[in-house]
């Protein structure tokens, strides 16, 4: 398909979509028709993210607003309010409870949209030589458990001899970190005057949560990925068993009141899975890997091209969120971090409950043994770097493909079967043929899905009241199809622009 055909395909989406970013992106779309080629995905992403919790926003905006290397969009030229209308400022108490406990946020504000919380820059930040702190959160507000066996809690809210410790201690040390942290979270809700009693009100409730632990069986079927579905089912079963084992009728009240029903436990588990960080922290002289729930920092959404990162400041035991050194931030831009790198969408789906059509690490299993020439493919899209860190080189590209190349094209560069043999140039006709074969493969994969891309989109638009998990799972398969579509388009362009 020529690139010109792309935009008609995508335009309907962008116009019809009513996602959270509508206002935001419309302003961007004004830049030109080329810009439209991506937004459709974005749209979809956005709506997908609805299904998720706040994280959703991350996935979406990630690709939208903060992709400096790709330069998908020109930065929005909105003067009056950089924030889309749906994004309302967070509850003042949300700030206040943290402010009183010496949480600080500099130059950022929390906003709440239909997809949940996000962190946005409230002023322009010029590129700085050194990373710049935008948030600091003291250790006292977090919930942490050491990853390895001597279970240590900072702050230690588990009293000596409390039965919750026996439960934590009974988990499998290698795998069940989420169960441990969920127990700790539930316990924190029960401890008087604990910060999480206040902060919990701002966590997504179980309806808002997109984690597939809370998903129905039919929601899992909607994934159209039976491997992932069975894995998630397994996880759910595990969690329920865990709850039944420890929250039996003879359990002490101290324990029982933490999670009276299994839903509460599943909710805690999904909260933990979707917002915990694993970090190496240093407390005093003790350095340890810890699973931690960090208030406020967990409101940061995910991006594959993040503009922030987390840093443990041991001097005063604070977790600080820093802007990447040398990163220019515009007012209203979303602050994002990278949750996991090098993972496929299904892993993101399993843990966080969101997916992205432009995950640069996504993989397609091609069945044909056709191969394309790697260097030609890279040069066609101005991709530079080694396979581990492919990036779109905006200096090389004169703007034509600026709006086309995204994470998916980079993912294709990694996942397409390629050959490369020194200086040997590809034979154009053979290249074209193999590209066409690979396209066929992709079409085949698309055809294997029970629904088409358009159908999925229709389903999503038709029932906006569907639960978050259902939305998330529909979006997952939608993103998969979008990814395949994108690869087909990329191969199309590649056939046209092979160098002779």
């Amino acid at each position, binding site marked *: 398909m020529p690139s010109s055909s792309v935009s008609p395909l995508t335009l309907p989406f962008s116009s019809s979509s009513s996602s959270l970013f509508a206002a935001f992106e419309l302003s961007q779309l004004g830049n030109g028709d080329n810009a439209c080629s991506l937004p459709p995905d974005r749209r979809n992403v956005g709506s997908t993210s*609805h299904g998720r919790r706040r994280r959703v926003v991350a996935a979406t905006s990630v690709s939208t607003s903060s992709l400096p290397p790709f330069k998908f969009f020109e930065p929005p030229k909105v003067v009056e309010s950089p924030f889309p209308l749906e994004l309302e400022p967070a509850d003042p108490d*949300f700030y206040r409870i943290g402010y009183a406990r010496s949480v600080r946020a500099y130059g950022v504000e929390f906003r709440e949209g239909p997809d949940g919380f996000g962190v946005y820059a409230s002023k322009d930040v010029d590129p700085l030589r050194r990373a710049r702190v935008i948030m600091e959160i003291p250790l006292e507000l977090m919930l942490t458990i050491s990853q390895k066996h001597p279970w240590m809690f900072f702050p230690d809210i588990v009293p000596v001899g409390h039965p919750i410790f026996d439960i934590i201690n009974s988990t499998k040390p290698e795998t069940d970190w989420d169960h441990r942290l969920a127990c700790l979270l539930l316990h924190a809700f029960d401890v008087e005057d604990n910060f999480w009693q206040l902060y919990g009100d701002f966590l997504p409730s179980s*309806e808002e949560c997109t984690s597939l632990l*809370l998903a129905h069986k039919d929601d899992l079927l909607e994934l159209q990925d039976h491997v992932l579905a069975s894995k998630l089912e397994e996880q759910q079963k595990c969690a329920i068993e865990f709850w039944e084992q420890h929250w039996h009728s003879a359990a002490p009240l101290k324990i029982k009141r933490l999670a009276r029903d299994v839903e509460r436990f599943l*909710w805690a588990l999904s*909260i933990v899975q979707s917002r915990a960080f694993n970090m190496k922290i240093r407390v005093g002289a003790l350095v340890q890997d810890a699973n931690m729930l960090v208030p406020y920092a967990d409101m940061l959404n995910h991006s594959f091209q993040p503009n922030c990162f987390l840093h443990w400041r041991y001097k005063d035991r604070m977790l600080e969120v820093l802007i990447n050194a040398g990163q220019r931030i515009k007012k209203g831009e979303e602050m994002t971090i990278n949750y996991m790198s090098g993972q496929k969408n299904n892993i993101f789906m399993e843990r966080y409950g969101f997916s992205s059509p432009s995950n640069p690490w996504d993989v397609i299993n091609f069945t044909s043994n056709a191969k394309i020439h790697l260097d030609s493919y890279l040069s066609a899209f101005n991709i530079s770097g080694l396979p581990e860190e492919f990036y779109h080189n905006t200096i090389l590209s004169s703007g034509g493909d600026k709006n086309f190349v995204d994470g998916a094209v980079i993912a294709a560069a990694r996942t397409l079967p390629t050959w490369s043999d020194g200086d040997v140039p590809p034979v154009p006709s053979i290249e074209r043929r193999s590209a066409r074969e690979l396209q066929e493969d992709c079409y085949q994969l698309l055809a294997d899905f029970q629904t088409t891309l358009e159908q999925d989109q229709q389903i999503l638009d038709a029932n906006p009241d569907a*639960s978050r998990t259902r939305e998330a799972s529909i979006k997952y398969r939608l993103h998969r199809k979008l990814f395949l579509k994108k690869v087909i388009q990329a191969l199309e362009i590649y056939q046209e622009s092979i160098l002779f």
Partner: protein
Amino acid sequence: MTSFSHSWLFQDQFVRRLRSDDCGVYGKLCRRKFHVYQKQFVGVCTSSKQSVYIGSNRGLQKQGKTFYTVNCTKERDFDPSSIEPPPYSSYMDSTSGQLEPASGARASIPGREYWPEGTASRVAAARAPEPVGKSDGKPSYGRSPGSRRRKYKGQATTSEVTETNGDMSNQPVLVTSESDDNADGPIDPSDEYVIYQTEPEPEEENMSQYELDKAMGRPHPFIDPAINKPIEEPHSSEDLWWNWRKPEKEQWSRWQRRRPDVDTVFAKAMAETGQIKLFGDYPTKTEAALARARRHIFKEERLQEEQRRLEEVGPIAYYSEWVKSWDRDTSREAIQRHYEETGEDEFTQLITMFEHQTAEEYRIMMGTDIRIKRDPLAMRMREDLIKEIWGGDPVYPTINYIQDPNEVIDFRGPDFHEPTPNMLSYLMEHGKIISREDLEKILANEKQQELEITDMDEALASAVDIGDDDDDDDDDDDDDDEESEGEEDKEDDEVEEEITRNWSVLKSTPQLRKSKKEKPKKKDAMSLEEAIDDSENITDFLMDFDEEE
């Protein structure tokens, strides 16, 4: 600063003015004016003060009324100029190069780039503005997480929650406890709640008063008085005195060793050269102090003796020792006679005598003759001993840098409590001390011998250094007895050379010495050589000598 204080003073005046004013106009306008003027006062100057008076003169009767109700006890005739102004209210700070207030925060805070690491962030954290705004939600305290979020899905689903509750078991419901109860009827309440015992515990009867108090939360001592064991009283100082135990001897730290001091080293050196004897291999503090005192006293005594002799025989007789060619009579009578004959007084005669003195004799007299061996102990000490005092370098001493000559020795070692032998009887039986009667006897004997044994050369050689105050050792100090200091010294050295090896044996077995001593004692006057032979070192020599005198 200044401007502030002025404004206060003016306000004060103003207020007084207001109080005393009776005439005026009522009105809000004036009151407002009053406020205006009050504001004006802050940046004050004399002219504005003037205008204020005018303004206040008009009216403010009402205000005045309120002022009367104020119970203010300020003196009427307070003169503001009676307050002494500070000498200066600001000064030029050389650090900042700016005018800084003289009171308040004196030191100017350096600029941000000079702050230590991390300070800027702390300041930023402290300056962060408190969030504003009022939230209408209420915290649920962990009961219903997510309750303060804006519900997007929630709103839609809340209505259907009740309906879908039945079929959608997977949909988690977070509701309050009563609806919980409604939903799950079969749950046994006793299963859910702990049922507390309402009856008083039977054990409560058995509880002691203390336990009861504690259980009821009534005031009670911290420790159960039944169990409480009183703390043993600390020993009285009397008990401590009698129960004192000698600490163990062993030295477990380098800091416990004795500081090397000059006295100890000299005592050691004196012992090595046989001048004193020690009762151990290392001088105790007492021994060291005694050796030092002895050195000092001997020198003092000798000097006194010289002086006494000088006064007794007259300067011409005294100094004629060092003028060999002066063969005239030097007795006082002869001098007197000479004076009567020629009219030359004693001083002139002395000068005449010194005119006959050779240069060599002069050098000897002044103690500057290098041919006369003068070896102070410090020069003869072994290298390691010297180093022990000064670290080997007298110019830049590396150890014992600070030496306090007046340091009082602390005799209270670990053996402080050991019974002390009766020193007097100890010395008496060892022949170190004699009674007064014995001394008189000896002195009476000595008087007769005095003039016989004068040996000019020897006396000259050693009596030279009168008045020069080197007291580093008594080895080269000479006794003032004119008899034979130099000889004694020399002999002493010889003796020392003979006996050095086993002098301590002689010390420890006094019988050997006794037997030696007995013989000369028989004679009433012991010759000097015998005395020297008899004594192993200078101490003994002197002791013996005393006895003989």
